[in-house]
């Protein structure tokens, strides 16, 4: 196990190197940062001084090495907008995003596990058709539409929940549902099909032949097996989840990283964008690693070496 983890961590190094190149090139893909920073009244002399100050007159590879050198120190440069180092600003926003992502996954799990199992065990019944239909609908609803509809219904009409912001548990409910619905829909379908396959396995028949309660057959013998592919696929969806936070956080003014990224892109605050992209990349890498570990915990047939 330890050896396996060590190997996986070592494999991350070349990936991080590639990401650093992408993050570095990102700035040049979005136009001229100097024009953006200067006011309309700036002279050519001002311009030349700024270029020299930013090191943009150096050859590209020198610029890259400088960038990497700073990166090792966690320095992505200062945010234009906040006039502060970019990385701490991004890191400060992380807890809020984690809170939302975990809540959304909880919502998704609580909805999808029972629905997926019911659909599979009552295959082709009215419930199955209802849940399968709902999951298509859930997957088809975009976050920005669902979020606004939820606000209209629960915040504006019923006045039961706050419209936006972060603070109490009540603030978390609508964004978590907005972000979790699509994932729940995907997971319901996955669990249903995985469960259907598992329920046809010989060992399920063995479990029944022992005289076990059907609920034990399903929740002990079948569920554990059918979660193996589900967990793997869901962990690979982390990037989709983070993508979802961009929109959800913006709708609900949730002070997380997603909202920060959208604002930074809009104001072309490149240091923040670079730092955020790097942080997201690392999150995705580690969630994939986590999926790998979970997969091995769930399935004893997988060896670590």
């Amino acid at each position, binding site marked *: 196990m330890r050896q396996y983890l060590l190997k996986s961590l070592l494999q991350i190094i070349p990936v991080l190197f590639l990401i650093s190149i992408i993050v570095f090139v990102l700035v040049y893909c979005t136009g001229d940062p100097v024009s953006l920073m200067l006011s309309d009244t700036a002279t050519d002399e001002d311009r030349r001084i700024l270029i020299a100050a930013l090191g943009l007159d150096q050859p590209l590879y020198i610029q890259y090495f400088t960038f990497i050198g700073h990166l090792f120190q966690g320095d992505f440069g200062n945010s234009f907008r906040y006039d502060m180092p970019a990385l701490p600003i991004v890191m400060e926003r992380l807890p809020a995003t984690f809170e939302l992502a975990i809540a959304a996954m909880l919502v998704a799990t609580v909805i999808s596990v029972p629905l997926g199992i019911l659909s599979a065990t009552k295959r082709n019944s009215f419930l199955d058709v209802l849940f399968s239909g709902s999951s298509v609908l859930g997957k088809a609803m975009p976050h920005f539409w669902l979020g606004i509809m939820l606000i209209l219904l629960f915040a504006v009409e019923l006045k039961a929940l706050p419209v936006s912001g972060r603070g109490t548990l009540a603030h978390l409910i609508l964004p978590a549902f907005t972000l979790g619905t699509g994932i729940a829909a995907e997971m319901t379908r996955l669990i249903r099909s995985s469960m259907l396959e598992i329920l046809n396995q*010989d*060992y399920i*028949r*063995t479990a029944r*032949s*022992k005289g076990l309660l059907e609920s034990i057959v399903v929740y002990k*013998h079948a569920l*554990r*097996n059918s979660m193996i592919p589900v967990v793997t696929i869901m962990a690979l969806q982390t990037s989709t989840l983070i993508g979802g936070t961009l929109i959800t956080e913006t709708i609900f003014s949730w002070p997380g990283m997603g909202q920060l990224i959208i604002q930074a892109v809009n104001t072309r605050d490149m240091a923040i964008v670079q730092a955020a992209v790097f942080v997201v990349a690392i999150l995705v890498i580690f969630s994939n690693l986590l999926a790998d570990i979970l997969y091995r915990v769930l399935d*004893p047939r997988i060896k670590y070496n």
Partner: protein
Amino acid sequence: METKLLEVRNLHTHFKTEDGVVPSVNGISFSVAKGETLAIVGESGCGKSVTSLSIMGLVAPPGQVVGGEILLEGQNLLALNKKELRKLRGNKLSMIFQEPMTSLNPVFTVGNQLGEVFRLHQNMDKQQARGRSIEMLETVGIPRADKVVDYFPHQLSGGMRQRVMIAIALACNPALLIADEPTTALDVTIQAQILELLKKLNDEYDTGVILITHDLGVVAEMADRVVVMYAGEVVEQANVFELFASPKHPYTKGLLGSLPKLDEQREELESIPGAVPNPLEMPGGCAFHPRCPLATEQCQSKKPSLVEVAPDHLARCLYA
């Protein structure tokens, strides 16, 4: 038949498919005495396995037992509710399956899957169940049982897995054990060990056994009595010596004829021509007539019934 342990009377199990109803088991009757080993023989698709699943109450939809009686010690299993049947299953009534490689759950240890039976039917706690599991593994001849109890199924060979399956099936000392082709998926040497084990346990515990197989060598070795099935029906039934010495039904004769013999040199093995009929297009008259070397015109129109052709020897043939 002093004490009848199991009596199956006129059992019908049908599968509803899009193309029509398939009568996989079509009115079969037989019985098993205490401590007796009854072999059910026939080609693939003749309804052997469906018969055993019907007894266990484990026929999966779209299959359904639609008629008949299954009496275990006088109690009709088909009249029991789910809860009552669950209490018998794995307890008085248990089953070993054909595929040891896939019949154990890959994500739980041997001890967990075996101990489950003790915890369920004998209300043991985890510790007691573990102790009994180790004893049971020793009973079925698994070396280092105290280690194997914590193994996962993938760490065991097919033969060992089948021993674990047998341990699970025998855990509660069942009155009736159904073994559905228990050795088909195993190497020949392992087959012999497993059969020997079954025979020993059968003698020791006086368990009634239904052995489902298509291997007549296994039948000769193990069985007291034999039921030959063809296309969902019993075509012949007799004690094992009688059946091998003087088979009455042409199908049984064909099965026995297709066995290679030690004292004969042949280029090709005998076989029964044709294949098991499509259950949706069952031939009229005797179901076997299209493949029967002795068939006459009468066989095409008149369905023979199962009659006693010799003492305690039944056959379903107009000419037996």
